[in-house]
């Protein structure tokens, strides 16, 4: 199993450009998440999904959009990129049942710079 795969690993955007960060997992996990990591701030949740066709906002959703058309894929769309979106983005997945005890599995990250 490849686990959670993110592309691209690095990207530089100009202000106002748009792009999509891709995330796919091959573990048949039902839950998927997008976090951003900024120095000294830990990880902040952007969006999450509890299954195909279902998404919900996290702590910092502004400026982002997501979709979940399949169990495997959970792309993150940045519209009108701003310097404040310069960050490292992590996709994660988990298999959760009613008790929600499972851990999250993370991708290797996508480093985005907006200039």
């Amino acid at each position, binding site marked *: 199993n490849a686990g959670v795969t993110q592309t691209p690993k690095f990207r530089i955007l100009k202000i106002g450009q748009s792009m999509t960060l891709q995330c796919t997992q091959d573990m048949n996990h039902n839950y998927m998440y997008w976090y951003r990591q900024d120095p000294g701030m830990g990880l902040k*949740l952007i969006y999450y999904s509890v299954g195909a066709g279902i998404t*919900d906002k996290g702590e910092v959703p502004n400026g982002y959009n997501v979709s979940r058309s399949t169990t495997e894929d959970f792309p993150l769309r940045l519209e009108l990129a701003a310097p404040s979106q310069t960050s490292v983005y992590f996709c*994660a997945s988990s298999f959760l049942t009613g008790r929600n*005890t499972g851990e*999250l599995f993370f991708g290797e990250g996508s480093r985005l710079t907006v200039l």
Partner: protein
Amino acid sequence: AQSVAQPEDQVNVAEGNPLTVKCTYSVSGNPYLFWYVQYPNRGLQFLLKYITGDNLVKGSYGFEAEFNKSQTSFHLKKPSALVSDSALYFCAVRVPNQGGKLIFGQGTELSVKP
């Protein structure tokens, strides 16, 4: 509001000495607590979790964590540190009934010197 605090930005330890990375939490209900490790330019890797039962939880790479309900703490420990343990460590708490998402602390940089 649910939250996690890691009071130390950095912890410095000599190789062979015991290490502790501190974590306190605030959550309503019974907490599910996690520790992750991040090596440079890598994703987060799961170390261990506390769900219920024994307060001392053992995890990967010789790490363990002690859950203390009265002090609302979940400190990460290792009896004998290795230089290769140097990394960024994150404590996290699962929010009940909210999509299984984790709330993370700000991270603690562990530096183990030979």
